[in-house]
């Protein structure tokens, strides 16, 4: 059961972030003023894939809550960082982001840090 929850959580997180990144880049640069938030809500309402992304975010949140009810945080947090690796790889091949040596090294350091903090 715990591995099913991990798979659901990681898959939902990855899908959510890929959809949000793809859609938000297409929507153009947003701001965080009161007007900015109103415009952002309008953008979300117009984009089905963005709504799907937010829904996946909710699925991943509830899967994480269910996981921490039965498993210790020291398992749940490193398990959730699996999405970090998958997303960075998919950002390169699906979203066509250029990941240079410096960004790759930084991402690896962060990943190691997250595993240490959670473990």
């Amino acid at each position: 059961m715990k591995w099913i929850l991990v798979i659901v959580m990681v898959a939902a997180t990855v899908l959510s972030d890929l959809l949000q990144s793809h859609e938000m880049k297409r929507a153009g640069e947003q701001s965080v003023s009161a007007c900015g938030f109103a415009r952002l809500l309008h953008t979300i309402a117009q984009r089905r894939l963005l709504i799907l992304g937010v829904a996946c975010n909710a699925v991943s949140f509830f899967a994480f809550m269910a996981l921490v009810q039965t498993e210790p945080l020291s398992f749940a947090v490193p398990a959730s960082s699996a999405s970090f690796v998958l997303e960075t790889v998919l950002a390169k091949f699906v979203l066509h982001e250029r990941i240079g040596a410096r960004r790759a090294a930084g991402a690896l350091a962060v990943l190691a840090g997250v595993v240490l903090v959670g473990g």
Partner: protein
Amino acid sequence: MTSLNTRSSVVMEGPRHSSGAALKTYFVLIFFLALKAAGNSWMAWGMKQVPERMSMNPALYLHAMLNPFVAMGIAALILALLTRMALLSLADLSFVLPVTAIGYVIAVFLGKIFLHETVSRQRWLGTLLIFAGAVLVGTTSRNTTPPAEDPK
């Protein structure tokens, strides 16, 4: 706040790595981290005051929302989600993921200062690695994908 509203900056400024836009990215990042830290703290504080144990019963969650700290926490976390989406409009996913991991560092410090949690040597090492990695990624160019084809 109007100076931050660079709706047409992609079209107007041409180069997407202007220092103004980069500053805006860091501003939105800090705003996101503050909202997330405040939201999580209020939520944790409020949930400790709610007497019932949560279960699958949705009525319990609705009742918990009557606690002002839980309500403030939820509001802050919803704003944090929207702010993260704004951040994703400004920067790559492979940029946003590592730099927002600074949130773990903030959580460790908040736990240490306000909840007097003991932080093991392993956690301090992890915190240091996250911070160093995030700074390293933070200095890379934030947006490497081709310009959006349908800017609305």
